[in-house]
C-alpha cells in the first residue's frame, strides 16, 4: 500500500545519578513519533502530566531532534506547573533521542 510507512520500535533507559530510573519505549515511522510510553520509579506532580507528555509527543517530527523534544516536554510541564523529582525533562528528551538510534 503506498504511503504506509514501516513502524519501528525504540527503547532507552537510564538511572539518573542521585535520582530515579526512567525508561522510554517509542514507536516511530521514520518521520514522526507514533507512540511513547515512559515508565520508571520517578516522582512527578501532578501525576497526570506524564500522560499529557506521552500524548503531546504523538506526531512530533523526528528531525526536530532532542532540542525539539525538550521544548515539547517543557511546554506541557509548564502548562501543568509540573514538578519532576528524581529526573528531569532533559532526561526524557535524551532518552527519546537515544531510543531513535
Amino acid at each position: 500500500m503506498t504511503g504506509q510507512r514501516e513502524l519501528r520500535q525504540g527503547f532507552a533507559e537510564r538511572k539518573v545519578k542521585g535520582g530515579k530510573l526512567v525508561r522510554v519505549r517509542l514507536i516511530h515511522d521514520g518521520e514522526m513519533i507514533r507512540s511513547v510510553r515512559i515508565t520508571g520509579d520517578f516522582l512527578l506532580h501532578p501525576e497526570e502530566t506524564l500522560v499529557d507528555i506521552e500524548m503531546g509527543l504523538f506526531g512530533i517530527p523526528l528531525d526536530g531532534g532532542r532540542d525539539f523534544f525538550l521544548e515539547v516536554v517543557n511546554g506541557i510541564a509548564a502548562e501543568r506547573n509540573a514538578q519532576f523529582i528524581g529526573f528531569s525533562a532533559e532526561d526524557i528528551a535524551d532518552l527519546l533521542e537515544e531510543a531513535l538510534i
Partner: protein
Amino acid sequence: MKWRLMDFERRTASVNMAIDEAVSIAVGRGESPPTIRFYGWEPSAVSIGCFQSVQEEVDVEVCREIGLDIVRRRTGAGAVYHDRNGEITYSVICPLDMVENDISASYCTICGWIIDALDLLGLQGQFHPINDVLVRGRKISGSAQTRRGGVLLMHGTLLYDLDPGTMFSVLKVGKEKLSDKDIMEFDERVTCILNEIEVPWHLVLRALRVAFTCEKDWEMGTLSKNEMVQVHKLAVERYGSDEWTYSR
C-alpha cells in the same frame, strides 16, 4: 485541627489503596479529619508505582503461584514487596496547608517521624533524599506521596523483617540479581528492624504511634460510613481491576 489515628490492621492490597484514596477524598471535602494510618498486607503483596509497568517490575506468574496480590498505587516511586509479617505501612493524609509547600521538604518532615520512631527504639535513622530513611547506611523505610484536591497523601513502609528470597522471586529487579554476591550486596543496601535490634512487633508499632502523634492533637478513629462506601467502590472498580493494574 485534631488528627484521627487509625490503628494497625491488615487488609488486601486493593482495599489498602482504596482506603488511602477514600480518606483523601473525604479529607479534601472537609468531611474527615487529617488522618494517620498504620496497616499491613493480607495476603502479602507487591505494589508498584503509578508510573511503572507491571511487566517490567513484577513476576506475575510467581505472584499467582504463591498467592500474592499485585496493586498499582496512585503514587510514584518504585515497586515494593509488602511481606505480611515483615512490614508496617503508614499513611499520612492531610490538607496541603498542614505540610510544607515544598515537596522535598515534606518528605523530610514525615520521614523525620520515622526517624523519631527509630530513635525511640534506640536506632539512629538518617533521611536519605529523595524519599528514604537509612540505618547504618542501609534503607529501612521508603515512601511516596501525591497531592490532589488540596490533600497530601504520603504512604511509606518500615521494614520489620526481611524475606529476600520471596522479594527476589517476585520483583524483577531482584530476579536479575540472584547470585550470592548480589544477595550480599542486597544485605549491604537494605536492612530491617530485626537486623538491628531484638524488639517485638508491638513495640515498633507503639514507637510509630508515639512519634507520628508527637505534639499533635489526636484521637483514635475508624472509617466513616461514607468512606467505607467509597472504599468498596474504589477497591472493586479501580485497585482491583486489571484495567488499572496493567494500565502501563
